[in-house]
């Protein structure tokens, strides 16, 4: 056990989480379904006004993605906390932040990537012009990992609480706002036809920054929650 290298520990943990997720395929679809349903609610609420739907489209898709991410966050450490394997990760010889990163990556592959896949369909439903769809996809692939990374800190802080769900959204949503602002701004700019390099660069910077810092904060929070 002591000879296990860090890379193989990382990939084993990633594989374990993916297998666990695959065994419960029905739950895999839920965040995606939620994403589609929330997005579909907006045109129903707003009414059949094509111009208006087109104007709010990028914002609606991103708010729905935010809510879907928030809803699925709670499951990130929940089962490991309940069966005690989280404590075993803390005891392992490898840095906890790297192991946490494997869990975040697995979580994003299971809950974030499906959103990316159905997004073009929703973009067509909301009359977003085809020229802006690649930008929407880019913002999603850059932005949703940031949501998982930032969210992991909130989950780690609340995992020991019995009713952590509401508090989790209170902690995490304000931190999601920069992603929301720059991502929707990028899509809106792309609809008008102006280059979106600036917004995409800022989103990439957020991704890199949170990739470096969030796992450390999550590891420290997990230690506090388990103490």
């Amino acid at each position, binding site marked *: 056990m002591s000879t296990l290298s860090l890379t193989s520990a990382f990939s084993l943990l990633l594989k374990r989480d993916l297998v666990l997720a695959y065994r419960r395929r029905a739950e895999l679809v839920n965040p995606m379904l939620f994403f589609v349903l929330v997005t579909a609610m907006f045109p129903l609420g707003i009414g059949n006004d094509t111009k208006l739907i087109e104007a709010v489209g990028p914002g609606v898709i991103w708010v729905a993605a935010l809510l879907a991410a928030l809803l699925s966050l709670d499951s990130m450490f929940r089962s490991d906390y309940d069966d005690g394997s989280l404590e075993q990760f803390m005891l392992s010889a490898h840095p906890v932040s790297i192991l946490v990163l494997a869990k975040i990556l697995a979580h994003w592959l299971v809950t974030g990537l499906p959103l990316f896949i159905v997004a073009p369909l929703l973009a067509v439903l909301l009359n977003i012009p085809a020229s802006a769809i690649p930008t929407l996809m880019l913002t999603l692939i850059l932005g949703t990992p940031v949501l998982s990374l930032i969210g992991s800190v909130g989950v780690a802080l609340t995992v020991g609480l019995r009713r952590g769900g509401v508090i989790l959204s209170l902690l995490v949503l304000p931190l999601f706002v920069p992603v929301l602002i720059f991502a929707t701004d990028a899509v809106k700019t792309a609809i008008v036809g102006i280059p979106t390099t600036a917004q995409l660069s800022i989103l990439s910077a957020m991704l890199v920054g949170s990739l470096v810092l969030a796992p450390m904060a999550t590891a420290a929070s997990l230690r*506090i929650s388990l103490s």
Partner: protein
Amino acid sequence: MIIRFFHQMGSPRYFYNVAGKMIPWFMAGFLITLVLGLYNGLFVAPPDYQQGESYRIVYIHVPAAWMSMFIYVVMAVSGLISLVWRIKMTEIIVISSATVGASFTFLALATGSLWGKPMWGTWWVWDARLTSELLLLFLYLGIIALHSAIEDKRVAARAVSILALVGVVNIPIIHYSVEWWNTLHQPATITKFDKPSMDMSMLIPLLTMAISFKLYYGAVVLMRARAEIVERERNSRWVQELVEKEAK
């Protein structure tokens, strides 16, 4: 010498006594500067050539907005110290500051929207600075909620410290929002390096109010810290002696 000072301040009992002696000074300073600042700001300072008399809300609005950011930075720094060096007193500072900070943030938002109505013709706009200040309020509320949700107060204080550190990225965004995004909110009138674009007769009351609010924060945070110490150390001997003495 300095190390000894920090060592002593790290002891709850010593802190409790020193804080008790400092509070009256902070309160006296607060009241004097408050009266001076308000009198000079509301009666002595000349009216603004564009905004007339209604600009005078600036003497509450701007110091409150400064305090909202200042207190958050204090919380993040003490959070870092308590995570790294496990000093009990800085943990207590983090949680004692949260409510005061939230109140100042709310005050800045409320006075801002009262000022916005006659000047901009609207209570609220989704402008960069207003939005980021609102986010700051939510960060404070999240910290308060997390602290009250965790039963063990030492664990809660450390969890809150991490959250304060994660949220500190918002502070530069608020500070530079009016320069990065040119929106409705006017840019800062007072900067460290330039000459302020404000007359001295208006600037001095503003700075007096800023000092006044800082002293108020000092007094309140010490009071709250003392209460928190007594609650945490309620099983220790000196607190029980203190309670017996008070009861007589």
